[in-house]
């Protein structure tokens, strides 16, 4: 199968998964006790039966399940995710407004974790009993066991009361004035702590994985061949070994991505980062169903896109992989 065919198949399959996500969410919400009308009525401080019926009529809640579902799915196909009565805004624009902040947090922390984790893993594999190996071992134990909100809060405590170097909440400082460069620095300044917190879990995972993967690869015959060619240690490690060791790393990074989105929810809450996670928590507490469904849909969409990118990357790294 050619590359484009595989890609097309993956994309089509991703669309199916997305429809599945929609159906599942919609079903869950309709079998849950209470509906949007009750919530709205609750928000208004209670309403009588006729008002509730009116609201039901307006949101189409008294239609049969499959009609409601069809309406929702076809709306999503037109990028219409419904209307948030809580924010009084279309869900799509609400999400598109918050999505960039989440993507910035998620991708910056993943890139940091992958690059630094790989480097640590390679250095550790070079000396399996050396100090970097020990560091990687400790890091991986800490990263798995430390609850992400706990390490975030510890960072906040440390950076507020002990070294007040970084802001601990929000994404920008409205009092900062200046050109785009100053604004960018301000953004990065705010990004630092949440990014480090979210990256710490995955740094632990990737460094450990990179170490194990490199150790396995370094025992391979082709590494001996590379040395016999006269390649210096650096080229053997970072070219011949690393390219082979990256496969498992990329695979796991792809598989982990939905967990990363989950971690982002917690980290955003800890650092008041104005992204999808904060929005999700607020709308869940407000029982703002259209927004919750929209967020789940968009998060799954991001995960599916990342999975497809993972497949492409894997194929670029390893020519032996035939299909996705």
């Amino acid at each position, binding site marked *: 199968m050619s590359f484009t065919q595989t890609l097309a198949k993956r994309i089509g399959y991703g669309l199916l998964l997305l429809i599945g996500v929609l159906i599942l969410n919609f079903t869950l919400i309709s079998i849950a006790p209470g509906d949007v009308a009750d919530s709205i009525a609750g928000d208004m401080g209670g309403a009588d039966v006729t008002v509730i019926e009116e609201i039901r009529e307006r949101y189409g809640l008294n239609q049969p399940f499959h009609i409601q579902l069809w309406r929702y799915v076809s709306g999503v196909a037109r990028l219409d995710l419904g209307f948030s009565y809580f924010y009084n805004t279309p869900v799509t624009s609400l999400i598109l407004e918050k999505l960039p902040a989440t993507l910035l947090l998620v991708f910056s922390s993943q890139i940091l974790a992958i690059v630094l984790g790989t480097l640590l893993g390679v250095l550790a594999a070079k000396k399996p009993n050396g100090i970097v190996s020990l560091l990687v071992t400790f890091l991986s134990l800490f990263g*798995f066991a430390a*609850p992400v909100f706990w390490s975030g809060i510890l960072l906040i405590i440390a950076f507020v009361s002990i070294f007040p170097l970084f802001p601990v909440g929000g994404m920008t400082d409205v009092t900062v004035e200046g050109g785009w460069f100053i604004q960018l620095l301000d953004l990065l300044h705010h990004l630092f702590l949440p990014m480090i917190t979210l990256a710490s879990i995955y740094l632990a995972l990737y460094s450990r994985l990179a170490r194990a993967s490199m150790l396995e690869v370094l025992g391979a015959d082709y590494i001996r061949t590379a040395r016999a060619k006269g390649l210096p240690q650096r080229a053997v490690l970072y070219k011949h070994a690393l390219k082979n060791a990256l496969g498992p790393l990329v695979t796991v990074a792809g598989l982990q991505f939905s967990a990363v989105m989950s971690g982002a929810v917690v980290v955003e809450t800890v650092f008041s980062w104005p992204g999808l996670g904060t929005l999700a928590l607020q709308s869940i507490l407000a029982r703002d169903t259209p927004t919750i469904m929209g967020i789940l849909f968009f998060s799954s969409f991001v995960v599916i896109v990342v999975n497809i990118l993972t497949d492409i990357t894997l194929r670029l790294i390893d020519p032996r992989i035939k299909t996705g």
Partner: protein
Amino acid sequence: MANSTPNHSASDAASDEIKVSHPFAEMVSMFFRNYAAVAGLLLLIAIILFVFVGPYFHPTDPFEMVWAPFSKPMEEGFVLGTDYLGRDLLAAMMVGGQVSMAIGLSAALISLFIGVTVGAFAGYYGGFIEEALMRFTEFFQVLPTLLFSMVIVALFGASLLTVTLAIGVVSWTAVARVTRSEFLRIRELEYVAAARSGSASDWYLIFKVILPNALPPIIVQANLMVGSAILFEAALSFLGLSDPNVMSWGQVIGSNRPYILDSGFTVAIPGFAIFLTVLAISLIGDGLNDALNPKLRQR
């Protein structure tokens, strides 16, 4: 358990010395030679004693307001201080630990049940069934787990049962993958072919022949799952999505969160308890992995 390793060890037995001992005894001795794993086991035992036996020695009700809020640890007669409502934190750590561990264990059992079932059927039958089941698994991999369980808890109410179910239902995909790949490997082995040719039933082959031999990596995975379920519960509680009438470590963190800048200890202490517990579990997991995976024994 006892017959779960010999199939792989045969090919790897090219070691210098050949000793014949019972494989289970060998695993146990392998485990106890791993100092980190033994330390993890001792730590876990200590935590379990603290959580379940501790209340007999410190019978304070964790919901009762006993003193002024935010009394610092050791300062006014409270070993771990008091929380934002002036409740005893030591008592909260003990009672909250019981809940955190119970949720962790039962959620892990739920995931284990779903994951092993899905993985075993997919790996054993192959073909269309495998394709369908693995697509189903992939579907759950795509859903951001925490968001999804937040939605479940929000929709069906924050009770112990829904929280446990919400965690269990979203965490089984890794077990399913491990189980499936073990089944794929083992079903090709000779003794399975032999059992098959003896016209054993599918049921017998899956649960009596293949599953016992697939157990080692599943056990390792299940052990880690208890740890991640505890973390999961803590994250949900931290976000305010837990049963408000039940004390758990995460719940203590979540309810004291607004006050971290003044009284960080109310959050640091329960966080540390979670950290130690999960650390102990993952140390044990590493030890189990080394002891159950004969390929690593040579290293």
